[in-house]
């Protein structure tokens, strides 16, 4: 291969090499210096970076602690919220439960809304009936066709039976594996609580609540709330059952009372009818008796005068007796007639204002001979400021004469008869008392004392004649004045008759009151 040769100038390059070498050394030195310096910076940078990474990692470690604490706090908060919601729900439920005593209505309160508010999707209430058989009373979210199977399976589960026996609530938190598996399978729930319904009389049933698999697990707080709910339900059930019993008894009693009242009402009507007929009979008979008696008494009086011829003393004596007995008979008939009129409402009473004291003074005067004969003292304790009363003076006069006359009769010598009067401002009436220091009346007789024709069986009554109509008449007169009469007595110490007369007559508006005796 042909070539072209070019001439080359021979140049000494040594100085260049020296300079270049020096420059190279200098450059290397500079670079070495630079890199050494940078290396320090890199080191510092790396140290800073490592420090920052350590800080980040420390920050991260702190963050882990924060997450852990925050998670716990959130769980506590959630549990607290659930409890508050549960308690709030229970409080509302307690309020509504307390408003009903109907068992059916009570079970209706355990509904889907309540279960949801408590955080459960299923609920079952089983309750014993009167034949001790367990029945489903509430079913929320459980297939009804499975209930029979659920009941039969539950009632052989030892933990369930034990819970019923000991009144213990248990849940998926603390139940045995076997029971948990059985309940989970039976109710198709993962989380559940079962609580017995405890009453004072024992276990009345059981409450089940549960949640499906996706729901949060139950907590001890849930268990407590469900136990409270079961207790509330049991208490309300017991109350409703007790109420039902009381109500049922009361209904029976009411029916009986009604029947008895009806019977008594009929009887009273009969009695009133009889009484009316009796009064009419007495009235008729009395009238019929009084006419011939008046004739007898009249003829006896004529014979006594001797106008139809002289009569022997013995006959005169007999005629005197006829006269006396006729008078007694007339008095008896008059009393009978008065009572009859009072009872049949045919006596009119004129209530007008009167002071009591003058009337009692007159009566005292009138009875003075008898008092003196018996050696009995009468004391009239009538306050000076006793208000005027509205009464029929003739009738009230008879009452006082009757009571004081009786007192004289039964008070032994040196005895005292006291007539008291004191106002009862609250009841707006005056209370009168006629008290004696006589032989008294036993309790048995006291109750019959105002019966017509009743006379206490004692020595005095055997000696002294009487009709047994006086007290009945007096009582009727007092009652016709809208007052009351009663008697208290202690055998051997004396008897007190009490009666009241109102301040104002109830028919005062009519000014001149015409009160029919017997209206009271």
């Amino acid at each position: 291969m042909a070539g072209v040769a070019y001439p080359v100038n021979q140049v000494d390059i040594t100085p260049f090499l020296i300079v270049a070498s020096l420059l190279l050394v200098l450059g290397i030195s500079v670079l070495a210096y630079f890199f050494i310096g940078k290396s320090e910076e890199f080191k510092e940078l790396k140290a800073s970076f490592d420090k920052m990474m350590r800080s980040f990692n420390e920050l991260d470690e702190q963050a882990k602690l924060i997450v852990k604490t925050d998670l716990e706090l959130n769980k506590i908060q959630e549990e607290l919220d659930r409890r508050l919601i549960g308690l709030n729900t229970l409080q509302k439920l307690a309020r509504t439960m307390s408003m009903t005593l109907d068992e059916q209505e009570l079970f209706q309160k355990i509904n889907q809304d309540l279960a949801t508010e408590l955080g459960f999707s299923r609920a079952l209430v089983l309750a014993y009936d009167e034949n001790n058989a367990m029945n489903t009373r509430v079913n929320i979210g459980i297939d009804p066709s499975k209930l029979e199977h659920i009941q039969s399976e539950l009632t052989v589960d030892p933990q369930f039976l034990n819970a019923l026996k000991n009144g213990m609530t248990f849940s998926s938190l603390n139940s045995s594996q076997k029971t948990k598996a059985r309940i989970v399978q039976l109710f198709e729930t993962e989380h559940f609580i079962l609580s017995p319904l405890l009453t004072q009389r024992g276990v009345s049933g059981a409450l089940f609540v549960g949640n499906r698999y996706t729901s949060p697990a139950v907590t001890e707080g849930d268990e407590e709330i469900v136990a409270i709910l079961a207790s509330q339900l049991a208490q309300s059930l017991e109350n409703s059952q007790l109420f039902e019993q009381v109500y049922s008894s009361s209904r029976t009693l009411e029916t009986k009372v009604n029947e008895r009242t009806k019977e008594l009402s009929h009887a009273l009507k009969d009695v009133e009818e009889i009484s009316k007929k009796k009064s009419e009979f007495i009235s008729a008979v009395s009238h019929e008796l009084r006419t011939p008696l008046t004739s007898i008494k009249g003829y006896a009086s004529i014979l006594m005068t001797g106008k139809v011829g002289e009569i022997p003393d013995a006959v005169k004596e007999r005629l005197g007796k006829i006269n006396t007995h006729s008078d007694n008979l007339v008095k008896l008939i008059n009393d009978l007639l008065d009572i009859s009129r009072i009872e049949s409402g045919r006596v009119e009473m004129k209530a007008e204002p009167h002071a009591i004291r003058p009337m009692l003074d007159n009566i005292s005067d009138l009875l003075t001979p008898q008092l003196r004969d018996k050696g009995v003292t009468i004391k009239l304790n009538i306050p000076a400021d006793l208000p005027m009363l509205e009464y029929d003076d003739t009738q009230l006069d008879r009452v006082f004469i009757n009571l004081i006359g009786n007192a004289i009769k039964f008070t032994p010598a040196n005895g005292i008869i006291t007539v008291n009067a004191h106002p009862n401002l609250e009841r707006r009436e005056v209370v009168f008392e006629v008290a004696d220091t006589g032989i008294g009346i036993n309790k048995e007789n006291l109750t019959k004392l105002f019966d017509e024709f009743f006379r206490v069986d004692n020595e005095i009554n055997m000696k002294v004649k009487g009709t047994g109509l006086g007290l009945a008449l007096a009582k009727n007169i007092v009652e016709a004045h809208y007052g009351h009469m009663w008697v208290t007595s202690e055998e051997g110490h004396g008897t007190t008759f009490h009666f009241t007369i109102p301040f104002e007559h109830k028919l005062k508006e009519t000014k001149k009151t015409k009160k029919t005796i017997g209206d009271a």
Partner: protein
Amino acid sequence: MATHIGIGFSSTSDPVEAFKAAAIEAKTQLNAVHTDLVIIFATSAYANTQGIVTLQRILQPKRLIGSITPGIIFGDRVETRGVGVMAIISDDWHFSTASLDQLNLIPAREAGYSLAQSLLADHKTPQRSTCLYFYDGLRKNGTQFCAGIREELGNALPIVGAIGVDSTKITATHHFYQDRILADAAVGLLIGGASVVSIAARHSWQPLGKPRIIDNSSGNVILSIDKQPAVRLYENYFHAADAILRAEQLEDIRLLYPLGIGTSTPREYLIRMPIDIPDDGSILCQGDVSTGSPVHLMITDKDACRQSIHDAAMDIRTQLFGKQPKFILVFESLMRRKILGRSGIQGIHAIQEVLGHSVPVFGMYTAGEVAPLGTLKTVSRTQLLNGSVVLLAIG
């Protein structure tokens, strides 16, 4: 020209009776024969067709949509069982509604697009104020559905939505549409003519622990975090294996400790509720998650939850310049309900305290909320949220 709102509620055990009672209560407040729109929020036991028919007979609504929910929100209370009904008569507003069922047969984005198309087809006026939709809680691709809706309706239209579920277990979901009850479906409402629409969305979650990086994700599935199976994040914090997490603590994870995905705005996080932990160690979220995003475990407390409702209400008030809205719809996260517990109602009270006690408040608990993350200022970023409270005020 006027707008009238009537709200009714019943918790009667019989669903038909409950619908009847709630409808009558709402109708009593309206005092009208027909209604333009009825929105129903009911607990799952009340997903009853006969009930809807009864309600239709009483309120005679031209449009009806609704969703089941674990809890119904009112201004003064929260009900966990029953039927809530809001009936509207308005001369000012126009409503169009649409539904889409058999979601399992359609890709989510396409489904969202299709629903939005139906809404527009039904809308007889060019005025569009806002869109509201309810999506099926058993579907696991809410972000794509939302994107489909947004694609058709445009980023400028305020969109609010909710994922309706029966409970925190998310075992069933139903929606109400006209006289039907739909499963595996979405229903939507387009409102036109409303003079003012304001939306506020707030969450109260704070990051906990060190930040990590999602280094592999696909749609709503986080495959790995920090080059480890995603579930390790939870295993570390809960000291539990993934099987135990899945079996025992998924609900706690889901509701109490969601993931916070970092956004381009500092200290703003998109909350993602894990809905499942599959066997491969990934984490299935309810919304999409981007690869490369920083991720945190998130935590919150009652006070922060309550404060966030107050803040959302204040936000609405600011947007409305103090003017009272005609009504407020509330979409409150189930996660926040779990944290608030019994005190949840205290937060709800804040809405009327801020916006006025006469403003009707009606809402539901959701498994996911759709709203702009933030306020209307970030309207283009309407997306599926978790763990948030969303207020939609219309005036």
